[in-house]
């Protein structure tokens, strides 16, 4: 209880100190929803556009409050596949986390090596530069055939996350202040120790940037990853399913869910970054 009060107090202080930013962010959200509502009204021929004829594709753009209703409803009622939205959320979160952990395991060592060794850079760069621009969507058919419905979607997400992390870590490893390496050498550090105790810690802030960008792209890939089906469902699967059945309000509820999930994960990554910076004394 005391803990809760403390958190509320910190939150209140944050809001009070940055009330201008909070106000502006709030206004920006209101603006977004207003534009959405006005466009919807325009298509439906409702106020303030009464007198205009309802456009026949108006159902593609439902009103915001209808979407909110359906969004809440989707957590309380099963959809056509017999799943609640909560289950889709959990399935997608699991998929993103697994893809994320895999991406870290590959991107961090590869990025460090490519940033510090000319040979590793020569070997790795062609692969990275050729694979990076391919949209993960293009891999879907092959991945689902080869890796099936459990690993296929995870690997699509992995492809989205791995490159931003790798490129940022590589940049960090390249920008290590040479005088720090000189210092470590004169203090008796061997190559592997310099790598572990100087290069790696130096790249951590870069890694955090890569993680934040990568998570966002991971969510961008989730619809592609889950579109032909995925074990245990998923929000992307839900969007594809409802769009295919012309259930557009539900589709929008799925879209809103992905937006919120992305905000949540990047927010958590941001908090983690602040904690790490404090712990490392770099901010």
């Amino acid at each position: 209880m005391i803990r809760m009060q403390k958190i509320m107090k910190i939150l209140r202080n944050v809001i009070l100190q940055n009330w201008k930013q909070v106000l502006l962010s709030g206004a920006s959200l209101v603006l977004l929803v207003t534009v959405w509502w006005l466009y919807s009204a325009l298509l439906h021929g409702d106020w303030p556009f009464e007198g205009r004829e309802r456009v026949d594709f108006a159902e593609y753009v439902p009103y915001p409050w209808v979407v909110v209703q359906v969004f809440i409803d989707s957590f309380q009622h099963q959809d056509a596949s017999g799943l609640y939205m909560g289950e889709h959320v959990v399935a997608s979160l699991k998929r993103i986390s697994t893809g994320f952990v895999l991406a870290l395991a590959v991107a961090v060592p590869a990025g460090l090596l490519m940033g510090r060794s000319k040979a590793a850079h020569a070997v790795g760069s062609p692969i990275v530069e050729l694979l990076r621009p391919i949209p993960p969507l293009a891999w879907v058919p092959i991945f689902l055939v080869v890796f099936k419905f459990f690993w296929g979607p995870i690997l699509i997400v992995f492809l989205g996350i791995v490159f931003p992390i790798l490129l940022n870590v590589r940049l960090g490893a390249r920008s290590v202040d040479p005088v720090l390496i000189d210092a470590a050498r004169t203090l008796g550090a061997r190559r592997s120790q310099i790598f572990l105790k100087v290069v790696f810690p130096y790249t951590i802030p870069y890694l955090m940037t890569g993680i934040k960008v990568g998570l966002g792209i991971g969510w961008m890939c989730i619809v592609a990853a889950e579109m032909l089906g995925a074990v245990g469902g998923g929000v992307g699967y839900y969007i594809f399913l409802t769009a295919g059945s012309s259930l557009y309000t539900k589709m929008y509820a799925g879209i809103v869910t992905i937006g919120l999930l992305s905000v949540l994960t990047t927010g958590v990554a941001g908090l983690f970054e602040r904690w790490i910076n404090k712990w490392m004394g770099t901010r």
Partner: protein
Amino acid sequence: MKTCIRIDCLSKVFSDNGRTVNALDGFQLDVMDGEFVCLLGPSGCGKTTVLRIVAGLESKTSGDVAVYGRPVQSSGPERGMVFQEFALFPWRTVRRNIEFGLEVKGLPEEKRAKISRSLIELVGLKGFEDTHPKELSGGMKQRVGIARALANDPAVLLMDEPFGSLDAQTRNLMQRELLRIWQATKKTILFVTHSVDEAVFLADRIVVMTARPGKVREIIEVGVPRPRDRTSKEFISVRGKVLAELDEEFEKARAKEISPD
């Protein structure tokens, strides 16, 4: 007295995209055990290069460099170095910066803590053990730099314009502090500076280098008893002598700049 650092006929040619620069040409110097020697010269004369070669951070083109008779091949913990840019690890606290060398040597935690505690005491950083470098002033940062280099108990302390980025007051204070630490630890110090005042205040001997390619122009025995008074007659007279030597080299370097070769 034993020779600590022996530098014999040291030459260094830098080449970059086909362009070559003769940085050092036949540099010759013996530094005695426990001696404080300053390298002084016009900028670009290669004084830092000498230091970096002794540290093992730079390769030599020809000549011999040995510390206690052992040829220098690469960097090693018996030659500690202090950098103008401090070169502290920003993510490590003061204590963990100082313990870096001990950590890579694999010393157990209690031993590391014991050594770092006494060094923190020696350089006057008590109360700042758990502070990160970012929160320290320039003078404090360099105290960490010195303590970190001393942690390995090196035979030689190589200092590359360590006080070059400090303000005048802090600089004077750090010079006195360095002399106190030097007398307490009895290390051999090779110190690069471009400040005549600093060299005369600190050194047993001052090596005035020629303009590029760098070699020894003159070695001046300071001979003023410590603690030295910067306003005393002997101090000013040595200062004048060093300055005259340096001015001539400076003029030569300038003439070369105006009409190269």
